[in-house]
């Protein structure tokens, strides 16, 4: 799994500054810190297909909104709020494949700024925002670590821009709304067994995503897409969710997004692309968001072994899911009852508890004792749900909307402010300012008022080093070792351009579980040059052969 965030970007004092340009400064500044040539390597778009729909059809390119077309570097996708392919060839994983060299350098422009990092992440400009897409990880704690590393990457980039007298100051925010109608995303990605029917994913995950807001919401001052009503709500994104299921991500945003672009062998996996979530500064919020969602997906992947548990969550279908997104987000008491298709009326907390109990009973049903990471998620999930029902204030160190609301309510009480006072809106924005000296989340962290899950040293390491237990290890380490000879990369490929070789060599990585430290460390360490590595990959103990 992984998480990708489009950061808010501003030039202080110049609201009309060109955000595409500012974003490209950020990405280019960080690219300059990367010693490897891949800092200017192209993204390999061959396997990207944002128009492939999980429901089994393919959106025609000409009928797609331009902002959805994110796979063409010569034409960066415009912002979703402005007026308005081919299915990839199947390749066998394993040995490198020859590719022709292009006679001239491909066209690059600022909107296509793109860096692949030695930690396996991608940093680029998307929709007039700088975006960090984390490397693939396998545990909720690792998500937190590499997500926080992304904040650090962005912060370092902005600092480099700041000290360059030729460039404007840039401030970055990890949030999802500007309060004037614009929203930008934080997307979770989960690798899911292709055998799970997509309709089951829709049925089981819709009520889950609608109600998990009680512990995933980042909090927002203002209600309605342009904040037309004064007040506070749990989620940043709730007012921009307009459909139950759909392919689009920049307009008519759905609860369940159907983009079916697995970045892996499509016969074995799909990538569930989740766009309903908020950007979280609080580590426990990110941990729970990704941890609980993975466990519900586990239920679906094991549905044959856990029929009772799956039946229990399938019965949670809501009568009006889209309306419920907003109901849950606007209910600070968490007591509103949602109508279920079977006639029951349950609160968001009760629905979440049904999922928790289903996962617990599913683990028993399948006779799978939870591993340490699973047990940690289950215990925290249960503890937070219990305390949200009995003593929500006790969750202010873990649940982001409560941490933010605590500050806002404090200000309201002390300074007698009504909800439409601009100071409260300013607090909401400054909450996610990445600068430790200015960001309000960071001031709380410094004061010990929010919980930290991963230590700062691990995050610093993750700025440069990839996770060890996915293909991100191969991507990141290969870039660090042989970056000078890598001309392009993507989630599931590296393209080597080795001096003297007749053609480019493309190494496909269609299995995200391959290319781990255990698989390829020896291969990488024992190769003195990229050409040697490629030779070994061609051999019998190649990339996928090494066990």
């Amino acid at each position, binding site marked *: 799994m992984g998480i990708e965030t489009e950061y808010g970007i*501003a030039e202080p004092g110049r609201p009309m500054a060109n955000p595409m340009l500012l974003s490209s400064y950020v990405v280019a500044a960080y690219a300059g810190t990367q010693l490897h040539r891949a800092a200017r390597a192209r993204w390999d778009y061959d396997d990207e297909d944002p128009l492939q729909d999980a429901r089994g059809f393919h959106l025609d390119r000409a009928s797609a909104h331009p902002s959805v077309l994110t796979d063409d570097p010569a034409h960066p996708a415009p912002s979703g709020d*402005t007026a308005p392919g081919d299915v990839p060839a199947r390749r066998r994983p394993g040995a490198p494949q020859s590719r022709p060299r292009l006679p001239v350098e491909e066209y690059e422009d600022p909107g296509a700024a793109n860096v692949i990092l030695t930690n396996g992440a991608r940093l680029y400009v998307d*929709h*007039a925002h700088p975006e960090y897409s984390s490397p693939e990880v396998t545990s909720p704690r690792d998500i937190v670590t590499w997500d926080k590393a992304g904040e650090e990457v962005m912060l370092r980039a902005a600092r480099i821009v700041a000290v360059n007298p030729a460039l404007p100051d840039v401030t970055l925010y990890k949030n999802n709304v500007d309060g004037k109608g*614009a929203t930008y995303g934080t997307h979770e990605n989960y690798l899911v067994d292709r055998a799970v029917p997509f309709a089951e994913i829709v049925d089981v995950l819709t009520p889950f995503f609608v109600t998990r807001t009680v512990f995933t919401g980042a909090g927002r001052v203002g209600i309605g897409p342009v904040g037309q009503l004064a007040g506070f709500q749990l989620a940043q994104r709730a007012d921009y969710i307009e459909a139950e299921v759909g392919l689009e991500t*920049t307009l008519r945003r759905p609860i369940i997004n159907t983009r079916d672009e697995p970045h892996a062998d499509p016969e074995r996996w799909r990538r569930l692309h989740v766009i309903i979530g908020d950007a979280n500064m609080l580590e426990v919020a990110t941990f729970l968001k990704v941890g609980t969602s993975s466990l519900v997906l586990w239920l679906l992947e094991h549905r044959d072994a856990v029929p009772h548990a799956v039946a229990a969550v399938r019965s949670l279908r809501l009568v009006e899911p889209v309306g419920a997104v907003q109901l849950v987000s606007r209910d600070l*008491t968490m007591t509103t009852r949602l109508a279920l298709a079977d006639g029951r009326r349950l609160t968001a907390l009760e629905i979440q508890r049904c999922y928790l109990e289903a996962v617990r009973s599913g683990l028993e049903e399948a006779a799978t004792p939870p591993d340490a990471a699973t047990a940690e998620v289950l215990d925290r999930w249960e503890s937070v749900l219990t305390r949200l029902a009995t003593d929500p*204030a006790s969750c202010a160190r873990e649940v982001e909307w409560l941490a933010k609301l605590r500050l806002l309510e404090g*200000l309201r009480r002390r300074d007698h402010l009504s*909800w439409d006072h601009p100071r409260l809106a300013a607090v909401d924005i400054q909450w996610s300012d990445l600068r430790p000296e200015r960001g309000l989340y960071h001031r709380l962290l410094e004061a010990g008022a929010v919980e930290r899950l991963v230590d700062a040293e691990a995050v610093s390491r993750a700025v440069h080093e990839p996770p060890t237990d996915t293909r991100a290890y191969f991507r990141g380490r290969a870039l660090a070792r042989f970056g000078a000879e890598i001309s392009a990369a993507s989630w599931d490929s590296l393209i080597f351009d080795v001096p003297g070789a007749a053609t480019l060599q493309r190494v496909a990585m269609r299995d995200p579980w391959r290319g781990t430290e255990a698989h390829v460390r020896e291969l990488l360490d024992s190769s003195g040059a990229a050409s040697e590595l490629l030779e070994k990959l061609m051999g019998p103990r190649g990339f996928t052969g090494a066990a």
Partner: protein
Amino acid sequence: MSGQQRSERHHDDDADAPEPISPPTAAQARDTEVDALLEEIDGVLESNAESFVRGFVQKGGQ
């Protein structure tokens, strides 16, 4: 916990309404903690909140 719904409770129970309960000490301690946090952030809050908020304009994304 409060939010916007704080002041709506007190009308329906009249006859044997209990004496207003003084906030539990835990809540007092929390208020004190919040006040300390507010002092901590007062120094970094944008001094001209209105123009700061007005100037925070983003393009829509995904």
